[in-house]
């Protein structure tokens, strides 16, 4: 058994409290245990002997201060004997600090009605902030378009490279695979009817009208939209955005507009690229699984798939670009506080972008059906 750090000695005529050993953080649990084992009641006078303490840190001094306070409260007389000077000094420091110690103010808790109200109000605020952001962006965009020399070409090209050019491989790979999977699934059905050649119709329409643009938008949302939010969010935390404002530059002009224009340029091109690889995947699969030769495939393709399908798909892409850039940047601007806020808003940006893209796509489908396209 280890030696006690705190012990009562009843042998002498005056009761003696013996403190010994290392009164440090590492031994604090032991010290508290020893403290609890002592019977503090019915003490008249005691001498506290600290000669054998060879090391004391603030936590040890804190315990000692607690003992002294308790003795004071139960009006026991005590004197401190043989304490080292530096330990007494430490005790004095802690005692001085302790007088300022009080309960930490607890944050107020509100009932559900209050919280519901708060949430609704926050949502309204959010919508208002988003509208304001879009408004500011539109004004600046109009100003810049009228004066093309104000466009920041370098930033724009940079966006085209990082968000467009560098995304080519991943988009090619994923659309190729989607093409393969689509053909496989549809081919299983078509084969039972012996309608193998119709794979060309199905593939052409679905890739051009839906899968190409949608897949591109979702990849870009995850790849670029989140990056926009994280980049701008970190800049907000670092007060870089405020610094821009004080230099008389609208953050939206420098940070958002090039991203917006860049994506609007890049998205249709990337969708075209996705279409190409989607069809390529489908074509290879059609040959392997359904026995549709490349010649047959192209011949049928030229007959049934009109350029209109392509345009219907591509026309959606600038809208998607608008959604990705504006929501990504807006969420970045909303960051405040600390690092976890960046994480939260980045996540939110991807979720909201994906949500809006799919809703928009559905609306387009309805619109095109109504128009009979």
């Amino acid at each position, binding site marked *: 058994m280890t030696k006690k750090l705190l012990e009562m000695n009843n042998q002498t005529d005056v009761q003696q409290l013996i403190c010994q050993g290392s009164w*440090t*953080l*590492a031994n*604090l*649990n032991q010290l*508290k245990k020893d403290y609890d084992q002592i019977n503090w009641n019915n003490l008249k006078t005691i001498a506290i002997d600290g000669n054998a303490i060879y090391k004391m*840190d*603030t*936590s040890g001094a*804190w315990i000692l201060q607690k003992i002294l306070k308790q003795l004071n409260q139960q009006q026991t007389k005590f004197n401190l004997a043989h304490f080292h000077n*530096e*330990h007494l*000094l*430490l005790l004095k*420091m*802690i005692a001085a*600090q*302790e007088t*300022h*110690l*009080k*309960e*930490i*103010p607890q*944050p107020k808790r509100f009932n559900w009605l209050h919280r519901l109200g708060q949430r609704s109000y926050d949502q309204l605020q959010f919508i208002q902030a988003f509208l304001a952001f879009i408004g500011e962006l539109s004004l600046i965009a109009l100003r810049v378009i009228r004066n093309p020399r104000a466009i920041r070409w370098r930033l724009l090209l940079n966006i085209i490279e990082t968000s467009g050019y560098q995304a080519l491989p991943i988009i090619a790979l994923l659309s190729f695979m989607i093409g393969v999977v689509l053909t496989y699934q549809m081919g299983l059905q078509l084969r039972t009817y012996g309608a193998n050649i119709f794979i060309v119709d199905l593939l052409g329409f679905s890739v051009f009208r839906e899968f190409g643009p949608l897949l591109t938008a979702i990849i870009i949302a995850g790849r670029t939209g989140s990056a926009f939010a994280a980049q701008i969010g970190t800049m907000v*935390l670092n007060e870089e955005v405020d610094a821009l404002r004080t230099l008389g530059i609208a953050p939206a002009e420098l940070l958002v507009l090039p991203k917006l224009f860049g994506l609007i340029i890049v998205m249709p091109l990337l969708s075209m690229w996705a279409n190409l690889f989607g069809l390529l995947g489908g074509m290879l699969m059609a040959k392997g699984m359904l026995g549709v030769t490349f010649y047959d495939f192209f011949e049928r393709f030229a007959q049934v798939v009109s350029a209109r399908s392509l345009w219907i798909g591509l026309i959606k892409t600038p809208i998607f670009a608008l959604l990705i850039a504006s929501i990504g940047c807006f969420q970045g601007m909303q960051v*405040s*506080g*600390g*690092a*976890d806020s960046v994480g939260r808003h980045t996540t939110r940006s991807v979720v909201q972008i994906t949500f809006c893209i799919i809703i928009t796509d559905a609306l387009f489908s309805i619109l095109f059906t109504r128009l009979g396209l």
Partner: protein
Amino acid sequence: MNEPIIELKHIKNYLGNSWVHNDLNLSVTRGEILAIVGGSGAGKSTLLRTMLMLQTPTAGTIKVFGQEITPNSTTALHYLHQHSGVLFQHNALFSSFTLLENVAFPLKEHTQLTQQTINQLALLKILAAGLTVEDANKYPAELSGGMQKRAALARAIALDPELLFLDEPTAGLDPQSAAAFDELVLNLQKTLELTIVMVTHDIDTLWQVTNRVAFLGEGRVLAIAPIAELVTINNPLLQAYFTGPRGRAIEKIYSGKKN
């Protein structure tokens, strides 16, 4: 008393296309308060980072607590990081923790105390650093610059470390708080026998609390001596640093006092 707690030998650091340190030697004695001074960009922060092995030196050996540390000496590094506290130049507070959680964090990680005890101890440190209990639930972003500095100090001393590294602890503090900081550092040294290595530009602090001052320049320690001696050394770089109008005024006050 005279054994070195940190020993740097022939340290070289190559950063951003230039030699920040070139054959730097320095040893820190147990129980002393050593200040590192030098012009901006002289490599003071980099030196602290090197001592903590947050950055591997290009060449040279580092011994802390008598053990040589390298990026691979995990036990020595673990010991070092458990027995030292660091205040970074830009505070490096955890932004998603409140002040109390920031200070309580090292206690929670390295001790088996109850939450209540940890909170009490953390509050004591917060008070010691000159903040109030009302600030305890605030997030770093809600604290002023000087308050963040004090919060970082509170976290650095949370474990009563044997070795304390402070990078510009009084930068951004009002004169009164800076004086309170000086007093706190002196008290810590006296009562806990801490060894403190600090980077500072505060000439008052240099005169008030340090035992020795190391002057960094040209990638080396140009001189290391108690401040009263250091200001008399005849070296153009040192002279330029200490005999500017500010340095001279303060020197007069203190050297007058000591005589």
